[in-house]
Structure formats: structure tokens, C-alpha cells
């Protein structure tokens, strides 16, 4: 098991290094950040002086080498726009993003698992149909639209929940739904089809013949077998929620990393883009490692192979 974890971590480190190179190259293709940092009436000498101060006059390879060396020491440089350490800016925003992603994922699971399971058990029935409609709605509506509808309904009309901001659980509910509704459809379908496959297997028929209660059959013997493909998706969706929550963060004024990084992309704030993308890469690698480890938990055969 230790060897397995070390191997996965090694592969993850190579992925992160690759991501660092890609983000470094792509961010520099977007143009010169100095023109966005100085007022238009700044003389050419000021432009050149700032380029030198930021090291942007150096050859690309040297810039990348300096970036890697500093990054290994936890120094991603000063944000051009916010004029503070880029990593600090990202790390201060990270808890809010992780909180939102976890809450979004919890919402997705809380809907997708019961709906998927009950749809499979009662396939063709009204739970199946209603569940699929609800799940498809989330996939059909863009997150910003869902967010605005939620604000209109639960903040303005019903006055149950706040329209914006970061704070207690009440602030988390609407953004988590806006973020978590989209993957519900895919998750529901995965759970439903996996459950349908498992429910038709011999060991489930045997369990029924032995008179084991249906609830136990569904949740202990069938769902545990059907959960492996869902687990695979969870890693991907969690990573997508970490990096793709920009729209929801803007709609709900949520102070997260997604908003910070997207703004940094538009303002060519290279240090923040690099720190943000690499932080997301690390989270992505860790999330997938956790998923890999959890396979063994739900399926002992996978655990034994390692």
C-alpha cells in the first residue's frame, strides 16, 4: 500500500510539474502585463523599469527556472495586481473554495445517490421519472441562472437565506445548490445504471432467496458494488468544482480562489495565475489519490491487488 501511495504521489508530482510549465507558457502568451499595470501616460522608461523590476525582460527559460526555484521554496512572487504575495492571496481564499466545493459535492451526492438508487429499484416508476427530470434540470440550466433564480426565490421572495456573502451555513446553502446541481444528472445516471446491473446479478438474487431484508440488499450489497464508478466521478467533479466555481463565486460574492484566478487571468497577473493553478493541481492530485484509496475500501478485491 505504501508503495502504491508513493507511486501515485510521484505521478502526481510529474503532473504538477507539467501543469506548471503549461500555465507558465500560456499565461505569457496572453500578452504583456505591464501595459495593464501602468497608466497610459507613463513614459517608455517607466515601462522598461517595471519590466526589469518584475524580471519580465529576462529570457523565457530563465524566468521559468527562477519561478520553479522560488516555487519550491513556497514563493510564487508578488501579485502584480494586488501587490501582495500571490500564494498568500490564494491560500487565504482556498478555505472558502474548498468549503463551497465540499458543500456542492455533498448536495450532489445527497440528491444523486437516493434518486439513482430509488430510480433503479423502481425503474419506470414516478420516482424514476421525477428524479430524472430534477437531475436534468440542473444540467440544462447554467449555474449563473440557477444562482439568480435561487436568490430571487429564497433571498428576495421567501427571505429565508442571504443573497450573498461568506459566513455561516446559511450563506453556504444557495451557492452549494447552484454549484452542485449540475453534476447531479450524470451522477444519478451512473448510480442508476450501476445499480440496475448489480441488482440483476446472481448474488443479489441469492440474497433475496435467503430472505435478507430488501433495505439491506439495496444499501449494503448492491449499492456498495455500484459505488465504484461513482467514486471515480467524484474525484473529477470535486476537482472541477474547485477550479470551476468562478461563476457561482461571482454571483454569490463568495471570496474564493476561482474568482481570484479568473480575474488574475484577465489582468495578466502571472504570479496569481500560477499559484492558483498549481494549488488547484495539488488539490486535484490529492483528490484523485483519495479516490484511488477509497476503491479499496468499498471493494476488497482492489485492495488485495495492491
Amino acid at each position, binding site marked *: 500500500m505504501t508503495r502504491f501511495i508513493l507511486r501515485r504521489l510521484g505521478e502526481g508530482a510529474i503532473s504538477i510539474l507539467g501543469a506548471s510549465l503549461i500555465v507558465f507558457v500560456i499565461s505569457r502568451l*496572453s*500578452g*504583456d502585463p505591464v*501595459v*495593464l*499595470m*501602468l*497608466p*497610459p*501616460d*507613463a*513614459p*517608455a*522608461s*517607466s515601462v522598461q*523599469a*517595471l519590466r526589469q*523590476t518584475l524580471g519580465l525582460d529576462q529570457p523565457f527559460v530563465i524566468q521559468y527556472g527562477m519561478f520553479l526555484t522560488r516555487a519550491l521554496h513556497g514563493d510564487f512572487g508578488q501579485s502584480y*495586481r*494586488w*501587490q*501582495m*504575495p500571490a500564494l498568500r*492571496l490564494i491560500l*487565504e*481564499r482556498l478555505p472558502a473554495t474548498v468549503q463551497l466545493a465540499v458543500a456542492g459535492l455533498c448536495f450532489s451526492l445527497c440528491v444523486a445517490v437516493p434518486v439513482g438508487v430509488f430510480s433503479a429499484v423502481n425503474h419506470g416508476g414516478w420516482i424514476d421519472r421525477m428524479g430524472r427530470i430534477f437531475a436534468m434540470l440542473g444540467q440544462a440550466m447554467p449555474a449563473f441562472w440557477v444562482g*439568480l433564480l435561487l*436568490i*430571487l426565490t429564497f*433571498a*428576495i421572495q421567501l*427571505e*429565508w*437565506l*442571504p*443573497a*450573498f*456573502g*461568506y*459566513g*455561516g*451555513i*446559511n*450563506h453556504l*446553502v444557495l451557492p452549494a445548490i447552484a454549484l452542485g446541481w449540475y453534476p447531479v444528472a450524470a451522477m444519478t445516471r451512473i448510480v442508476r445504471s450501476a445499480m440496475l446491473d448489480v441488482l440483476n446479478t446472481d448474488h443479489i438474487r441469492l440474497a433475496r432467496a435467503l430472505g435478507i431484508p430488501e433495505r439491506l440488499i439495496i444499501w449494503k450489497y448492491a449499492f456498495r458494488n455500484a459505488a465504484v464508478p461513482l467514486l471515480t466521478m467524484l474525484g473529477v467533479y470535486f476537482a472541477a468544482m474547485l477550479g470551476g466555481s468562478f461563476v457561482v463565486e*461571482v*454571483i*454569490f*460574492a463568495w*471570496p*474564493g480562489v476561482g*474568482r*481570484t484566478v479568473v480575474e488574475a487571468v*484577465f*489582468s*495578466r497577473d502571472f504570479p496569481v495565475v500560477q499559484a492558483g493553478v498549481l494549488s488547484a493541481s495539488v488539490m486535484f492530485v490529492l483528490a484523485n489519490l483519495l479516490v484511488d484509496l477509497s476503491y479499496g475500501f468499498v471493494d476488497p478485491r482492489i485492495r488485495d491487488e495492491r
Partner: protein
Amino acid sequence: MLSRRAFAAGLPTLAALGIGPALAQGSDTLTVALGAESTTLDPTVAAAGVDYYMINDLFEQMLRPDPGGQRINWLAESWTVGGAPDKPIIDITLREGVLFHDNTPLTSADFEFAYQLMGDPKHARNVHQQADVEAFEIVDPRRFRLHFKQPDALYLALNFTLWAVPKKYYEQVGREGFNKAPIGTGPWKFVSRSVHEELRLEAFEGYWNKAHRPRVKNLVIKVIPEDLTRVAAFKTGAVDWIDAVPPSMLSDFAKLPGVSTRTVASGNNLFLNLAADLPNSPLKDVRVRRAVALAVDMDAIIKKVLFGQGERYSELVSGEPGYDPTLTPYPYDPKQARELLRDAGYPNGFDVICYNLTTPREPSMKEMGEAEFAYLSQVGIRCRTQQLEYGAWITTGLRNPTGPRMDGIISWMSGHGVPPDPGSAWAGQIHTYMPNAGWGGYSFSADPELDALVEQQRRILDPEQRAAVLNKIAHLKHERVLGGITTYRPLVTFAWRTDKVDWTPWPAGYWRTFQEVALKA
């Protein structure tokens, strides 16, 4: 199934979790919301217009515009201009009894420190603002002199540029520490900040200006970038004051009971910039440029696209030095525009690339550009529109000594500020491009007479003499259709709850400074 009874039983649980509408905080706290926030709270490194939204609450300069837009002495008790006409000296006496938020007194040494920081290219970005000052001389703790290499009219237009920062504290905590816990002389003291979330301030009890000061203990400035969410926060009572009410919702706000609104010029100025200096471009011909100016029905576009939240202007705006009410905007006259094109040798019109900004730096700016370009196409100036995000747009619209240059028409902006002054904008948009001198950074004109006048106005400190030169530039610019065709200046609307908030708008910080505000009992 969840029964109604079970649902009702769950409500107290929700309440215990804090679920319920968020309301603006207690009677000693005013909660407001801005659509954008400062990227730094250190005025010596600030460069973007948005930075001053929050900085003016914490920091002050020697001059500050009053609610009527008149520049008045602020931290400067008095000042005189002396020395030789070509090497002036501004002699400034500071107001007595001004304290920083740590209760240390403001002295000349603090302004000298600000001058050193703001002139250091390793520290500040607007170092060119200090380029004409050759020496800072301290006379005594309340008096100092600024020695100029040459006169600089913009120094006055920028409230003498320098901000009061406490030298001792700044040196003690350093640049990063100062940005994390800034100390100024302004009406509000820093409490805490969470980027993208909120800034918390507390009224400064030792504030020197007893007549114009906040009358509420705490101020929480929330940052809500999405227009509809900001409006929702206001409607639900989570905040009691918001900026930038979306133009499409103004009529809705007018019907809200107990809500006041105030609409002012945002400080930005928009225009169509034309590649008038390219030898082979149709736009080099003044008749073609005039045709462009006559082809666009700006009044209709402002009414339909901006819901009236824009104001036409012709080179200068009301209240600006050199403003002349007789210089009216170009009329909408498509017939004459077609005739001018025919006279210029383009009876069938011509194709041109039109660059448009898609990033909403101003409300509906993308749609405004599209509408303007559509009008041009109607008279035969066929726009092949290129939509650009902000970074690409600014790279296209700014001159650069080596790279490609803008070769058609671009929807552009350059703020005259609040209160307005055209000096900086015109140096960039009218004067021939001279990168080493800082002239013409986004200019596609080359007119020696206008160049000389733009340089002249920069070197005149006497307000009346300078206004006369600015007036002359405005007329020449308008007649020759150079330095951009002025289109409109955006208006911004603020809304607040009349029964709770007593707010006097001050122009500093683009009207977002809470110099005088109180909560009603």
C-alpha cells in the same frame, strides 16, 4: 414524504443554524456594498482608478474636492506658488492638529516620505507624477516647499498627488505590513479586510475635521461584483447603500418606497478613436472623420441601450477648466455624412476594422460600441467588428514602439476624473505619440499645433490662462476631428435607504468616499 408538520418542526433548527435573511448590522454599523474594490490600501502604490474607492476613506491629500466639485484646502491649511515662472516653488503649510489613526501628529516629514516612496520606481507605479519635482524642502514640521524643474499643471489637478502616510509606522511595518494594516489621517480607521469579501472600518474619533465627518461608529463595505446580487442584497436589507445601480433597474428603484438615489458622472469619458495618422487610411481625411462623427445618433443609443445613464459631451464637460457651452456635440446627420464621404472619394463607402471592448468596464459598453458601429455601417463606413477582452483591447488601443498598431476605429475611454480635468487624458489622446516623453500613449493624431498647445497647457499654473488654452484645444480638436470623437460619459447611480441612512456624496474616490454619513435613529 416530508409533511408540513415536519417542515414546520424543522424551522427552529434552521434558525439555530443561522438560516434566515441576513440584515444589515446593528444601529452603530452601516453596511454598504460596492461592485468593485481597491486592489491595495496603500495610496503610495495605488495606480488604478478603482484603488481610490476605499483609499479615500482612510487617507487624505493636501487638497480634496468638496461636494460641489470645488477643490478646497484639506490637509494643507494654505499654499502659495512662488519661485521663477519656469521653475516654480509651491510653499505649503499643513493644517494644525491633524492626527494619524495611531494618534501621532502629521508632519512635513510624513509628506517628504510619501514623496520619496511615490517617486521610487521600485515602489510606486505613478512615478511619472513626481517627474517634475526636483526637491522637497522641509521648512518646519508644518511647512514644506516643493521645488519644480518646470511647471506642472497636473500636480494641482491631482490634489498635489502626495498622500499623508505615517513615516515612522510605515518604516516599522514595511510595505506589506502597511497594506495589511494601513494607517492614515482619514475619517475612517482600518479594522480588517478580506479581499473579495469586505472591508471593516471604524470612525476615527481623533479626526481633525469636526464639520464633515462620519456620524456612525462602524462601516462595513461589502464587495458584490454581480449587479443583480448587489440589488438583491439591498432589497433584502442586507445592505443599506449600494453603488452602480444597473441602468435597466433604475425605473424599478424609482418605485421603491423609502429609497433615495443620486446619479452623477462616473468620471470616465468615452470616445471613438480613429487611426487618423495612417497615410493610406480613409480616416486621414478630415471629411471622413467628420462623416464618422455625424453618422452616429448618440442620443438614441444612450436612451435605448443605457436607459439614459449616459451624458453626451463635446470635448470638455461642464465644470471642467476651459469648458465652453457653445461647443455642442456633433449632430446626427447621416445625409451629410454620406455627402462628406462622397466628397472625400468614397461614394460607395469603405470597409474598416472596428475594435470593441467586451469586458464591462462601463455598463453595457460592449452594446454601446456595437450600436455605434452599426450606425457607421448605415452610412457606408462598413465596420468589420473585432470584439476584444480588456487585455487585448488595451494592447490594441495603446501605442507601442515596436509592435502592431491600431488601424481602424476603436471604442475607447480616458477619464477626465472627478472633478474633471482634461490634462492627463488629452496628453494621451491628442498629442503625437512620443514614447520617451510620455506623450500620446493612445494617440493616433499628428498635429503640430495641437501638440504645442497640449504641451503649453501642462506648463501653465495660472487657472485662467490654462483654461483659455484648454478652450482653444477643444475648439481645434472639434473642428479637425482629432484625438477621438467624443461620444458620452457614463453616469453612475447610488441608492440608499432614506429612513436609515443620511449620506452626503463627496466626489473623492469617484463618489464612493463616506466622508459624511450617519445612521438615522
